[in-house]
Protein backbone atom coordinates (compact mmCIF):
# COMPACT_ATOMS: atom_id res chain seq x y z
CA UNK A 1 0.00 0.00 0.00
CA UNK A 2 2.68 2.44 1.03
CA UNK A 3 4.76 1.25 -1.89
CA UNK A 4 1.87 2.11 -4.21
CA UNK A 5 1.81 5.66 -2.87
CA UNK A 6 5.54 5.93 -3.48
CA UNK A 7 5.01 5.02 -7.13
CA UNK A 8 2.13 7.45 -7.29
CA UNK A 9 4.58 10.29 -6.57
CA UNK A 10 6.76 9.39 -9.56
CA UNK A 11 4.81 11.39 -12.19
CA UNK A 12 5.05 14.44 -9.92
CA UNK A 13 8.81 14.09 -9.62
CA UNK A 14 9.11 13.70 -13.40
CA UNK A 15 6.94 16.81 -13.87
CA UNK A 16 9.01 18.80 -11.41
CA UNK A 17 12.26 17.85 -13.12
CA UNK A 18 10.89 18.75 -16.57
CA UNK A 19 9.62 22.13 -15.39
CA UNK A 20 12.90 23.01 -13.70
CA UNK A 21 14.71 22.01 -16.87
CA UNK A 22 12.48 24.30 -18.92
CA UNK A 23 13.14 27.11 -16.43
CA UNK A 24 16.90 26.59 -16.85
CA UNK A 25 16.61 26.96 -20.60
CA UNK A 26 14.24 29.93 -20.47
CA UNK A 27 16.84 32.27 -19.01
CA UNK A 28 16.72 35.77 -20.46
CA UNK A 29 19.36 36.22 -23.12
CA UNK A 30 22.11 33.67 -23.56
CA UNK A 31 22.49 31.19 -20.66
CA UNK A 32 26.06 30.48 -21.66
CA UNK A 33 26.91 34.16 -21.30
CA UNK A 34 25.30 34.18 -17.87
CA UNK A 35 27.12 31.13 -16.61
CA UNK A 36 30.43 32.32 -18.05
CA UNK A 37 30.18 35.53 -16.06
CA UNK A 38 30.14 39.18 -17.13
CA UNK A 39 33.86 39.45 -17.94
CA UNK A 40 34.01 36.42 -20.25
CA UNK A 41 35.40 36.61 -23.78
CA UNK A 42 33.59 35.18 -26.80
CA UNK A 43 35.78 32.07 -26.76
CA UNK A 44 35.12 31.56 -23.07
CA UNK A 45 31.38 31.81 -23.69
CA UNK A 46 31.64 29.27 -26.49
CA UNK A 47 33.62 27.01 -24.19
CA UNK A 48 30.94 27.30 -21.49
CA UNK A 49 28.28 26.65 -24.12
CA UNK A 50 30.02 23.43 -25.08
CA UNK A 51 30.60 22.39 -21.47
CA UNK A 52 26.98 23.07 -20.59
CA UNK A 53 25.94 21.15 -23.67
CA UNK A 54 23.96 24.14 -24.97
CA UNK A 55 25.19 23.48 -28.53
CA UNK A 56 23.33 20.15 -28.58
CA UNK A 57 19.67 19.39 -29.28
CA UNK A 58 17.10 20.00 -26.58
CA UNK A 59 16.49 16.28 -26.00
CA UNK A 60 20.22 15.67 -25.69
CA UNK A 61 20.48 18.60 -23.27
CA UNK A 62 17.72 17.08 -21.16
CA UNK A 63 19.61 13.80 -20.90
CA UNK A 64 22.76 15.68 -19.85
CA UNK A 65 20.70 17.57 -17.29
CA UNK A 66 19.36 14.31 -15.87
CA UNK A 67 22.90 12.93 -15.66
CA UNK A 68 24.04 15.99 -13.73
CA UNK A 69 21.07 15.66 -11.39
CA UNK A 70 21.80 11.98 -10.80
CA UNK A 71 25.36 12.91 -9.81
CA UNK A 72 23.93 15.60 -7.52
CA UNK A 73 25.44 18.38 -9.60
CA UNK A 74 23.38 21.58 -9.72
CA UNK A 75 26.18 23.76 -11.02
CA UNK A 76 28.23 26.37 -9.20
CA UNK A 77 27.22 29.67 -7.73
CA UNK A 78 28.75 32.61 -9.59
CA UNK A 79 29.12 34.82 -6.53
CA UNK A 80 30.66 32.32 -4.08
CA UNK A 81 32.14 29.84 -6.56
CA UNK A 82 30.86 26.99 -4.39
CA UNK A 83 28.80 24.08 -5.74
CA UNK A 84 25.12 24.87 -5.25
CA UNK A 85 24.43 21.45 -3.72
CA UNK A 86 26.95 21.99 -0.90
CA UNK A 87 25.59 25.40 -0.05
CA UNK A 88 21.98 24.27 -0.09
CA UNK A 89 22.84 21.30 2.10
CA UNK A 90 24.55 23.59 4.60
CA UNK A 91 21.65 25.99 4.77
CA UNK A 92 18.71 23.61 4.53
CA UNK A 93 18.63 22.62 8.24
CA UNK A 94 18.10 26.28 9.22
CA UNK A 95 15.07 26.51 6.92
CA UNK A 96 13.67 23.17 8.05
CA UNK A 97 14.00 24.09 11.72
CA UNK A 98 12.11 27.31 11.09
CA UNK A 99 9.42 25.68 8.96
CA UNK A 100 8.66 22.85 11.37
CA UNK A 101 8.62 25.10 14.44
CA UNK A 102 6.19 27.37 12.58
CA UNK A 103 3.99 24.40 11.75
CA UNK A 104 4.12 23.19 15.36
CA UNK A 105 2.99 26.58 16.68
CA UNK A 106 0.18 26.71 14.11
CA UNK A 107 -1.11 23.22 14.93
CA UNK A 108 -0.95 23.75 18.69
CA UNK A 109 -3.01 26.93 18.44
CA UNK A 110 -5.28 26.27 15.47
CA UNK A 111 -6.59 22.77 16.22
CA UNK A 112 -7.94 23.52 19.73
CA UNK A 113 -9.44 26.79 18.46
CA UNK A 114 -11.12 24.95 15.61
CA UNK A 115 -12.61 22.39 18.01
CA UNK A 116 -13.75 25.20 20.29
CA UNK A 117 -15.49 26.97 17.42
CA UNK A 118 -17.12 23.75 16.22
CA UNK A 119 -18.59 22.92 19.62
CA UNK A 120 -20.17 26.37 19.86
CA UNK A 121 -21.39 27.10 16.31
CA UNK A 122 -23.07 30.46 15.81
CA UNK A 123 -21.88 31.96 19.09
CA UNK A 124 -19.49 34.89 19.47
CA UNK A 125 -16.62 32.41 19.97
CA UNK A 126 -17.36 30.97 16.55
CA UNK A 127 -17.65 34.37 14.87
CA UNK A 128 -14.45 35.57 16.50
CA UNK A 129 -12.57 32.47 15.33
CA UNK A 130 -13.91 32.98 11.81
CA UNK A 131 -12.86 36.62 11.78
CA UNK A 132 -9.40 35.74 13.14
CA UNK A 133 -9.01 33.03 10.51
CA UNK A 134 -9.86 35.44 7.68
CA UNK A 135 -7.53 38.04 9.15
CA UNK A 136 -4.82 35.39 9.41
CA UNK A 137 -4.77 34.51 5.71
CA UNK A 138 -4.81 38.21 4.85
CA UNK A 139 -1.56 38.89 6.67
CA UNK A 140 1.43 39.34 4.40
CA UNK A 141 4.06 37.24 6.24
CA UNK A 142 6.80 39.77 5.66
CA UNK A 143 4.67 42.44 7.26
CA UNK A 144 3.69 40.35 10.30
CA UNK A 145 7.36 39.53 10.80
CA UNK A 146 8.34 43.20 10.77
CA UNK A 147 5.51 44.09 13.11
CA UNK A 148 6.49 41.37 15.60
CA UNK A 149 10.14 42.46 15.43
CA UNK A 150 9.13 46.07 16.06
CA UNK A 151 6.87 45.27 19.02
CA UNK A 152 8.95 42.60 20.75
CA UNK A 153 12.45 43.88 19.95
CA UNK A 154 12.21 47.66 19.64
CA UNK A 155 9.26 48.50 21.92
CA UNK A 156 9.32 45.79 24.59
CA UNK A 157 12.94 44.61 24.36
CA UNK A 158 11.79 41.04 25.01
CA UNK A 159 13.21 39.46 21.87
CA UNK A 160 16.84 39.55 20.70
CA UNK A 161 17.68 41.57 17.60
CA UNK A 162 16.10 39.91 14.57
CA UNK A 163 19.37 38.87 12.94
CA UNK A 164 20.39 35.27 12.41
CA UNK A 165 19.87 32.00 14.22
CA UNK A 166 21.85 32.52 17.40
CA UNK A 167 23.25 35.48 19.33
CA UNK A 168 26.73 36.44 18.07
CA UNK A 169 28.24 35.90 21.53
CA UNK A 170 27.40 32.19 21.33
CA UNK A 171 29.30 29.74 19.14
CA UNK A 172 26.90 27.58 17.14
CA UNK A 173 26.46 24.15 18.74
CA UNK A 174 28.53 21.29 17.27
CA UNK A 175 26.80 20.25 14.06
CA UNK A 176 25.13 16.85 14.21
CA UNK A 177 21.75 17.40 12.57
CA UNK A 178 22.25 21.06 11.72
CA UNK A 179 19.14 21.94 13.71
CA UNK A 180 20.44 24.25 16.46
CA UNK A 181 17.71 23.30 18.93
CA UNK A 182 18.47 19.58 18.60
CA UNK A 183 22.24 20.01 18.41
CA UNK A 184 22.46 22.15 21.52
CA UNK A 185 20.39 19.61 23.45
CA UNK A 186 22.60 16.79 22.20
CA UNK A 187 25.62 18.73 23.42
CA UNK A 188 23.77 19.30 26.76
CA UNK A 189 24.31 23.02 26.32
CA UNK A 190 21.18 24.63 27.76
CA UNK A 191 22.57 28.13 27.40
CA UNK A 192 22.88 27.92 23.64
CA UNK A 193 19.55 26.08 23.44
CA UNK A 194 17.94 29.06 25.13
CA UNK A 195 19.81 31.50 22.91
CA UNK A 196 18.78 29.79 19.68
CA UNK A 197 15.22 29.28 20.89
CA UNK A 198 14.96 33.01 21.61
CA UNK A 199 16.07 33.80 18.06
CA UNK A 200 13.66 31.27 16.65
CA UNK A 201 10.47 32.35 18.43
CA UNK A 202 9.59 35.41 16.34
CA UNK A 203 10.22 34.01 12.85
CA UNK A 204 8.49 30.74 13.74
CA UNK A 205 5.53 32.64 15.17
CA UNK A 206 5.33 34.69 11.95
CA UNK A 207 5.10 31.53 9.85
CA UNK A 208 2.68 29.94 12.31
CA UNK A 209 0.28 32.90 12.20
CA UNK A 210 0.04 32.64 8.44
CA UNK A 211 -0.97 28.97 8.28
CA UNK A 212 -3.15 28.94 11.38
CA UNK A 213 -6.18 30.08 9.41
CA UNK A 214 -6.54 27.16 6.96
CA UNK A 215 -5.85 24.66 9.73
CA UNK A 216 -8.43 26.21 12.01
CA UNK A 217 -11.09 26.41 9.31
CA UNK A 218 -10.58 22.83 8.32
CA UNK A 219 -10.65 21.60 11.92
CA UNK A 220 -13.86 23.49 12.52
CA UNK A 221 -15.57 22.29 9.35
CA UNK A 222 -14.59 18.66 9.77
CA UNK A 223 -15.41 18.65 13.49
CA UNK A 224 -18.85 20.09 12.72
CA UNK A 225 -19.42 17.37 10.15
CA UNK A 226 -18.41 14.60 12.52
CA UNK A 227 -20.41 16.01 15.45
CA UNK A 228 -23.63 15.85 13.45
CA UNK A 229 -23.07 12.24 12.39
CA UNK A 230 -25.00 9.29 13.73
CA UNK A 231 -22.32 7.52 15.70
CA UNK A 232 -21.84 10.66 17.81
CA UNK A 233 -25.57 10.80 18.44
CA UNK A 234 -25.45 7.17 19.52
CA UNK A 235 -22.48 7.82 21.78
CA UNK A 236 -24.29 10.76 23.35
CA UNK A 237 -27.51 8.80 23.74
CA UNK A 238 -25.58 6.03 25.47
CA UNK A 239 -24.72 8.56 28.14
CA UNK A 240 -20.98 8.67 27.55
CA UNK A 241 -19.29 11.64 29.21
CA UNK A 242 -19.07 14.74 27.02
CA UNK A 243 -15.28 14.82 26.98
CA UNK A 244 -15.07 11.20 25.90
CA UNK A 245 -17.53 11.73 23.04
CA UNK A 246 -15.67 14.84 21.97
CA UNK A 247 -12.08 13.63 22.12
CA UNK A 248 -12.13 9.85 21.86
CA UNK A 249 -14.80 9.63 19.15
CA UNK A 250 -15.33 12.91 17.35
CA UNK A 251 -11.85 14.39 17.35
CA UNK A 252 -10.09 11.29 16.08
CA UNK A 253 -12.41 11.09 13.11
CA UNK A 254 -12.25 14.81 12.46
CA UNK A 255 -8.48 14.64 12.26
CA UNK A 256 -8.33 13.01 8.81
CA UNK A 257 -9.39 15.99 6.64
CA UNK A 258 -7.08 18.16 8.75
CA UNK A 259 -4.14 15.94 7.85
CA UNK A 260 -5.11 16.34 4.18
CA UNK A 261 -4.95 20.14 4.40
CA UNK A 262 -1.40 19.83 5.70
CA UNK A 263 -0.32 19.50 2.07
CA UNK A 264 -1.60 22.99 1.24
CA UNK A 265 -0.24 24.28 4.51
CA UNK A 266 3.24 23.10 3.56
CA UNK A 267 2.95 24.87 0.22
CA UNK A 268 2.23 28.10 2.12
CA UNK A 269 4.98 27.44 4.66
CA UNK A 270 7.73 26.72 2.14
CA UNK A 271 6.77 29.80 0.12
CA UNK A 272 6.55 32.19 3.04
CA UNK A 273 9.79 30.73 4.35
CA UNK A 274 11.66 32.86 1.80
CA UNK A 275 9.98 36.08 2.95
CA UNK A 276 10.39 35.38 6.66
CA UNK A 277 14.05 34.49 6.21
CA UNK A 278 14.63 37.82 4.53
CA UNK A 279 12.92 39.75 7.33
CA UNK A 280 14.84 38.01 10.12
CA UNK A 281 18.15 37.63 8.24
CA UNK A 282 17.77 33.88 8.83
CA UNK A 283 20.67 32.06 7.15
CA UNK A 284 18.56 29.39 5.40
CA UNK A 285 18.09 28.58 1.73
CA UNK A 286 15.49 31.36 1.41
CA UNK A 287 17.94 34.15 2.10
CA UNK A 288 20.49 32.29 -0.04
CA UNK A 289 18.17 32.43 -3.03
CA UNK A 290 17.37 36.11 -2.47
CA UNK A 291 21.09 36.96 -2.50
CA UNK A 292 21.41 34.95 -5.71
CA UNK A 293 18.39 36.70 -7.29
CA UNK A 294 19.81 40.12 -6.49
CA UNK A 295 23.10 39.29 -8.24
CA UNK A 296 21.40 37.50 -11.19
CA UNK A 297 23.09 34.24 -10.16
CA UNK A 298 20.80 31.64 -11.70
CA UNK A 299 22.27 28.25 -10.74
CA UNK A 300 21.38 28.70 -7.04
CA UNK A 301 17.86 29.86 -7.96
CA UNK A 302 17.24 26.73 -10.03
CA UNK A 303 18.79 24.52 -7.39
CA UNK A 304 16.54 26.15 -4.83
CA UNK A 305 13.36 25.70 -6.87
CA UNK A 306 14.21 22.05 -7.48
CA UNK A 307 15.09 21.40 -3.82
CA UNK A 308 11.89 23.03 -2.58
CA UNK A 309 9.75 21.15 -5.08
CA UNK A 310 11.31 17.77 -4.26
CA UNK A 311 10.98 18.55 -0.56
CA UNK A 312 7.32 19.38 -1.10
CA UNK A 313 6.69 16.16 -3.06
CA UNK A 314 8.38 14.23 -0.22
CA UNK A 315 6.26 15.99 2.40
CA UNK A 316 3.07 15.24 0.49
CA UNK A 317 4.15 11.63 0.28
CA UNK A 318 4.73 11.57 4.03
CA UNK A 319 1.24 13.01 4.53
CA UNK A 320 -0.23 10.27 2.31
CA UNK A 321 1.57 7.57 4.26
CA UNK A 322 0.45 9.13 7.53
CA UNK A 323 -3.10 9.11 6.23
CA UNK A 324 -2.95 5.38 5.56
CA UNK A 325 -1.52 4.78 9.01
CA UNK A 326 -4.18 6.87 10.78
CA UNK A 327 -7.12 5.54 8.83
CA UNK A 328 -6.93 1.81 8.06
CA UNK A 329 -10.02 2.12 5.82
CA UNK A 330 -8.02 4.03 3.21
CA UNK A 331 -5.74 1.03 2.82
CA UNK A 332 -8.58 -1.46 2.39
CA UNK A 333 -10.45 0.56 -0.20
CA UNK A 334 -7.39 1.61 -2.21
Amino acid at each position, binding site marked *: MILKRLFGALPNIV*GVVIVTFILTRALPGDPAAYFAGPAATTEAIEQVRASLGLDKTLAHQFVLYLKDLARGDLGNSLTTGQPVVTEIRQRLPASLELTFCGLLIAVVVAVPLGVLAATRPGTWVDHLCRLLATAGVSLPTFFTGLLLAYVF*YFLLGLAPSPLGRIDVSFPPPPAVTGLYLVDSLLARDLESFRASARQLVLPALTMGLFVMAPLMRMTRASMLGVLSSEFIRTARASGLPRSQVLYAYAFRNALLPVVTTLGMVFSFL*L*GSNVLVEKVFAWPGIGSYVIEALVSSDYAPVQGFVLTMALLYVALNLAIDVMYVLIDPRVGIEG
Partner: protein
Amino acid sequence: MSAATLKHIRYVATENPVTLVAFLLFSGFVLLALFGPWIAPYDPLASNSGAALKPPSAAHWFGTDSLGRDILSRIIVAARLDFGIAVSAVAASFVIGAALGSLAGFYGGWADRIIGRIADTIMAFPLFVLAMGIVAALGNTVANIVIATAIINLPFYIRVARAEVNVRRGAGYVEAARLAGNSDLRVLAMHVFPNILPPIMVQISLNMGWAILNAAGLSFIGLGVRPPQAEWGIMVAEGATYIISGEWWVALFPGAVLMLAVFTFNLLGDGLRDIMDPRMRT
Protein backbone atom coordinates in the same frame (compact mmCIF):
# COMPACT_ATOMS: atom_id res chain seq x y z
CA MET B 1 -30.87 40.36 -11.74
CA SER B 2 -34.25 39.18 -10.60
CA ALA B 3 -36.18 40.47 -7.60
CA ALA B 4 -35.55 37.20 -5.76
CA THR B 5 -31.77 37.56 -6.16
CA LEU B 6 -31.92 41.14 -4.91
CA LYS B 7 -33.93 40.00 -1.94
CA HIS B 8 -31.41 37.30 -1.24
CA ILE B 9 -28.54 39.78 -1.50
CA ARG B 10 -30.33 42.12 0.90
CA TYR B 11 -30.86 39.18 3.24
CA VAL B 12 -27.17 38.25 3.16
CA ALA B 13 -26.08 41.86 3.67
CA THR B 14 -28.32 42.34 6.71
CA GLU B 15 -27.66 38.86 8.06
CA ASN B 16 -23.92 39.33 7.83
CA PRO B 17 -23.00 43.03 8.05
CA VAL B 18 -19.36 42.05 7.54
CA THR B 19 -20.09 41.39 3.87
CA LEU B 20 -21.57 44.86 3.52
CA VAL B 21 -18.48 46.41 5.10
CA ALA B 22 -16.30 44.35 2.76
CA PHE B 23 -18.25 45.60 -0.23
CA LEU B 24 -17.88 49.24 0.87
CA LEU B 25 -14.13 48.77 1.42
CA PHE B 26 -13.85 47.14 -1.99
CA SER B 27 -15.57 50.11 -3.65
CA GLY B 28 -13.15 52.41 -1.84
CA PHE B 29 -10.14 50.52 -3.17
CA VAL B 30 -11.56 50.56 -6.70
CA LEU B 31 -11.96 54.33 -6.48
CA LEU B 32 -8.35 54.66 -5.32
CA ALA B 33 -7.15 52.48 -8.19
CA LEU B 34 -9.14 54.51 -10.74
CA PHE B 35 -8.61 58.05 -9.45
CA GLY B 36 -5.49 57.63 -7.25
CA PRO B 37 -3.20 60.10 -9.04
CA TRP B 38 -5.83 62.86 -8.69
CA ILE B 39 -6.59 62.12 -5.03
CA ALA B 40 -2.98 61.91 -3.80
CA PRO B 41 -2.04 65.14 -1.97
CA TYR B 42 1.63 65.09 -3.09
CA ASP B 43 3.68 63.85 -6.04
CA PRO B 44 4.51 60.23 -5.09
CA LEU B 45 7.97 60.44 -6.65
CA ALA B 46 9.00 63.92 -5.49
CA SER B 47 11.76 63.59 -2.91
CA ASN B 48 12.51 66.24 -0.34
CA SER B 49 15.67 65.58 1.66
CA GLY B 50 14.72 68.25 4.18
CA ALA B 51 11.62 66.29 5.24
CA ALA B 52 13.11 62.78 5.30
CA LEU B 53 11.79 60.18 7.78
CA LYS B 54 9.31 62.53 9.42
CA PRO B 55 6.67 60.85 11.63
CA PRO B 56 2.98 61.26 10.76
CA SER B 57 1.82 64.88 11.03
CA ALA B 58 -0.99 67.10 9.79
CA ALA B 59 0.91 67.80 6.56
CA HIS B 60 1.97 64.17 6.00
CA TRP B 61 -0.70 61.92 7.52
CA PHE B 62 1.35 58.76 7.13
CA GLY B 63 4.77 60.46 7.50
CA THR B 64 7.56 60.54 4.95
CA ASP B 65 10.11 57.93 3.87
CA SER B 66 13.92 58.08 3.74
CA LEU B 67 13.84 60.32 0.66
CA GLY B 68 11.19 62.61 2.11
CA ARG B 69 8.43 61.29 -0.17
CA ASP B 70 4.90 61.44 1.19
CA ILE B 71 3.89 57.89 2.17
CA LEU B 72 0.14 58.49 1.93
CA SER B 73 0.46 59.64 -1.69
CA ARG B 74 2.64 56.69 -2.55
CA ILE B 75 0.14 54.26 -1.01
CA ILE B 76 -2.75 55.81 -2.92
CA VAL B 77 -0.96 55.80 -6.25
CA ALA B 78 0.29 52.22 -5.71
CA ALA B 79 -3.29 50.92 -5.53
CA ARG B 80 -3.57 51.00 -9.32
CA LEU B 81 -0.40 48.97 -9.87
CA ASP B 82 -1.22 46.37 -7.20
CA PHE B 83 -4.80 45.98 -8.38
CA GLY B 84 -3.69 46.00 -12.01
CA ILE B 85 -1.28 43.12 -11.42
CA ALA B 86 -3.85 41.12 -9.46
CA VAL B 87 -6.74 41.74 -11.85
CA SER B 88 -4.78 40.90 -14.99
CA ALA B 89 -3.24 37.79 -13.42
CA VAL B 90 -6.57 36.52 -12.14
CA ALA B 91 -8.29 37.33 -15.45
CA ALA B 92 -5.64 35.39 -17.37
CA SER B 93 -5.87 32.34 -15.12
CA PHE B 94 -9.67 32.52 -15.20
CA VAL B 95 -9.85 32.55 -19.01
CA ILE B 96 -7.21 29.87 -19.59
CA GLY B 97 -8.05 27.76 -16.55
CA ALA B 98 -11.81 27.75 -17.12
CA ALA B 99 -11.35 26.88 -20.80
CA LEU B 100 -8.94 24.01 -20.10
CA GLY B 101 -10.98 22.76 -17.15
CA SER B 102 -14.25 22.82 -19.14
CA LEU B 103 -12.68 20.88 -22.01
CA ALA B 104 -11.27 18.32 -19.58
CA GLY B 105 -14.59 17.93 -17.79
CA PHE B 106 -16.69 17.84 -20.96
CA TYR B 107 -14.67 15.43 -23.08
CA GLY B 108 -12.88 13.36 -20.44
CA GLY B 109 -10.42 10.78 -21.79
CA TRP B 110 -7.07 11.99 -23.09
CA ALA B 111 -7.85 15.69 -22.86
CA ASP B 112 -8.77 15.19 -19.22
CA ARG B 113 -5.62 13.22 -18.45
CA ILE B 114 -3.23 15.69 -20.08
CA ILE B 115 -4.88 18.76 -18.58
CA GLY B 116 -5.09 17.09 -15.19
CA ARG B 117 -1.39 16.25 -15.39
CA ILE B 118 -0.55 19.90 -16.14
CA ALA B 119 -2.52 21.03 -13.09
CA ASP B 120 -0.90 18.36 -10.90
CA THR B 121 2.58 19.35 -12.03
CA ILE B 122 2.00 22.99 -11.14
CA MET B 123 0.56 21.94 -7.79
CA ALA B 124 3.62 19.76 -7.12
CA PHE B 125 5.57 22.96 -6.46
CA PRO B 126 5.23 25.18 -3.44
CA LEU B 127 3.39 27.89 -5.38
CA PHE B 128 5.27 30.98 -4.26
CA VAL B 129 8.56 29.21 -4.98
CA LEU B 130 7.40 28.35 -8.50
CA ALA B 131 6.41 31.99 -9.04
CA MET B 132 9.90 33.06 -7.97
CA GLY B 133 11.46 30.56 -10.36
CA ILE B 134 9.30 31.73 -13.26
CA VAL B 135 10.07 35.42 -12.72
CA ALA B 136 13.77 34.64 -12.32
CA ALA B 137 13.79 32.65 -15.57
CA LEU B 138 11.62 34.94 -17.71
CA GLY B 139 13.17 38.17 -16.52
CA ASN B 140 12.56 40.68 -13.81
CA THR B 141 9.58 42.70 -15.07
CA VAL B 142 6.04 43.50 -13.95
CA ALA B 143 4.61 41.62 -16.95
CA ASN B 144 6.41 38.48 -15.83
CA ILE B 145 5.00 38.86 -12.31
CA VAL B 146 1.55 38.80 -13.91
CA ILE B 147 2.44 35.70 -15.93
CA ALA B 148 3.89 33.91 -12.89
CA THR B 149 0.87 34.73 -10.73
CA ALA B 150 -1.46 33.60 -13.49
CA ILE B 151 0.36 30.28 -13.88
CA ILE B 152 0.34 29.40 -10.19
CA ASN B 153 -3.40 30.13 -9.92
CA LEU B 154 -4.25 28.09 -13.01
CA PRO B 155 -4.79 24.71 -11.28
CA PHE B 156 -7.53 26.09 -9.01
CA TYR B 157 -9.61 27.24 -11.99
CA ILE B 158 -8.93 24.07 -13.94
CA ARG B 159 -10.13 21.97 -11.02
CA VAL B 160 -13.26 23.97 -10.24
CA ALA B 161 -14.28 24.18 -13.91
CA ARG B 162 -13.54 20.51 -14.54
CA ALA B 163 -15.56 19.32 -11.55
CA GLU B 164 -18.51 21.61 -12.30
CA VAL B 165 -18.67 20.75 -16.00
CA ASN B 166 -18.26 17.06 -15.30
CA VAL B 167 -21.40 16.84 -13.14
CA ARG B 168 -23.42 18.77 -15.73
CA ARG B 169 -22.37 17.12 -18.96
CA GLY B 170 -25.11 14.50 -18.74
CA ALA B 171 -27.82 16.89 -17.51
CA GLY B 172 -31.19 17.01 -19.27
CA TYR B 173 -30.76 20.49 -20.70
CA VAL B 174 -27.42 19.48 -22.19
CA GLU B 175 -29.01 16.50 -23.92
CA ALA B 176 -31.82 18.74 -25.13
CA ALA B 177 -29.40 21.30 -26.54
CA ARG B 178 -27.48 18.56 -28.28
CA LEU B 179 -30.63 17.03 -29.79
CA ALA B 180 -31.61 20.47 -31.05
CA GLY B 181 -28.56 20.24 -33.30
CA ASN B 182 -25.96 22.28 -31.42
CA SER B 183 -22.33 21.29 -31.81
CA ASP B 184 -20.38 20.06 -28.80
CA LEU B 185 -18.41 23.28 -28.43
CA ARG B 186 -21.56 25.36 -28.73
CA VAL B 187 -23.30 23.32 -26.03
CA LEU B 188 -20.25 23.72 -23.80
CA ALA B 189 -19.88 27.45 -24.35
CA MET B 190 -23.53 28.56 -24.47
CA HIS B 191 -25.30 26.08 -22.20
CA VAL B 192 -22.89 24.52 -19.73
CA PHE B 193 -20.42 27.35 -19.16
CA PRO B 194 -22.91 29.99 -17.92
CA ASN B 195 -24.02 27.50 -15.27
CA ILE B 196 -20.55 26.98 -13.86
CA LEU B 197 -19.86 30.72 -13.54
CA PRO B 198 -21.19 31.19 -9.97
CA PRO B 199 -18.73 28.80 -8.27
CA ILE B 200 -15.92 30.26 -10.37
CA MET B 201 -16.84 33.81 -9.32
CA VAL B 202 -16.34 32.79 -5.68
CA GLN B 203 -12.96 31.35 -6.62
CA ILE B 204 -12.02 34.62 -8.35
CA SER B 205 -12.83 36.71 -5.33
CA LEU B 206 -10.90 34.45 -2.97
CA ASN B 207 -8.06 34.38 -5.47
CA MET B 208 -7.72 38.14 -5.88
CA GLY B 209 -6.51 38.64 -2.32
CA TRP B 210 -4.01 35.89 -2.76
CA ALA B 211 -2.79 37.34 -6.07
CA ILE B 212 -2.17 40.73 -4.46
CA LEU B 213 -0.31 39.05 -1.59
CA ASN B 214 1.75 37.06 -4.05
CA ALA B 215 2.70 40.08 -6.17
CA ALA B 216 3.59 42.11 -3.09
CA GLY B 217 5.68 39.23 -1.78
CA LEU B 218 7.60 38.99 -5.05
CA SER B 219 8.36 42.69 -5.09
CA PHE B 220 9.28 42.54 -1.40
CA ILE B 221 12.19 40.22 -2.28
CA GLY B 222 13.18 42.48 -5.18
CA LEU B 223 11.43 40.86 -8.13
CA GLY B 224 9.26 42.68 -10.65
CA VAL B 225 8.50 46.22 -9.59
CA ARG B 226 11.61 48.41 -9.45
CA PRO B 227 12.15 51.44 -7.25
CA PRO B 228 11.33 54.34 -7.31
CA GLN B 229 7.92 53.11 -8.47
CA ALA B 230 5.39 52.95 -5.64
CA GLU B 231 4.05 49.48 -4.82
CA TRP B 232 2.91 48.22 -1.42
CA GLY B 233 5.31 45.27 -1.15
CA ILE B 234 8.36 47.29 -2.15
CA MET B 235 7.36 50.09 0.24
CA VAL B 236 7.30 47.59 3.12
CA ALA B 237 10.72 46.34 2.00
CA GLU B 238 12.04 49.93 1.97
CA GLY B 239 10.65 50.48 5.45
CA ALA B 240 12.02 47.19 6.81
CA THR B 241 15.45 48.67 7.46
CA TYR B 242 13.99 51.49 9.53
CA ILE B 243 11.58 49.53 11.69
CA ILE B 244 14.19 48.20 14.11
CA SER B 245 15.50 51.70 14.67
CA GLY B 246 12.02 52.93 15.52
CA GLU B 247 10.77 54.59 12.28
CA TRP B 248 7.70 52.38 12.22
CA TRP B 249 5.51 54.42 9.91
CA VAL B 250 7.57 53.77 6.77
CA ALA B 251 6.67 50.07 6.69
CA LEU B 252 3.53 50.01 8.83
CA PHE B 253 1.15 52.04 6.66
CA PRO B 254 1.79 50.33 3.30
CA GLY B 255 1.76 46.96 5.06
CA ALA B 256 -1.52 47.73 6.81
CA VAL B 257 -3.16 48.90 3.58
CA LEU B 258 -1.95 45.78 1.78
CA MET B 259 -3.41 43.68 4.58
CA LEU B 260 -6.70 45.54 4.44
CA ALA B 261 -6.95 45.01 0.69
CA VAL B 262 -6.38 41.27 1.00
CA PHE B 263 -8.75 41.09 3.96
CA THR B 264 -11.42 42.88 1.91
CA PHE B 265 -11.19 40.34 -0.89
CA ASN B 266 -11.27 37.39 1.49
CA LEU B 267 -14.35 38.73 3.28
CA LEU B 268 -15.99 39.48 -0.06
CA GLY B 269 -15.23 35.96 -1.25
CA ASP B 270 -16.83 34.51 1.86
CA GLY B 271 -19.85 36.76 1.41
CA LEU B 272 -20.19 35.81 -2.26
CA ARG B 273 -20.04 32.16 -1.31
CA ASP B 274 -22.87 32.72 1.18
CA ILE B 275 -24.91 34.33 -1.59
CA MET B 276 -24.20 31.56 -4.10
CA ASP B 277 -24.46 28.59 -1.81
CA PRO B 278 -25.44 29.01 1.82
CA ARG B 279 -24.65 25.36 2.57
CA MET B 280 -20.96 25.71 1.76
CA ARG B 281 -20.48 28.16 4.60
CA THR B 282 -17.60 27.12 6.83
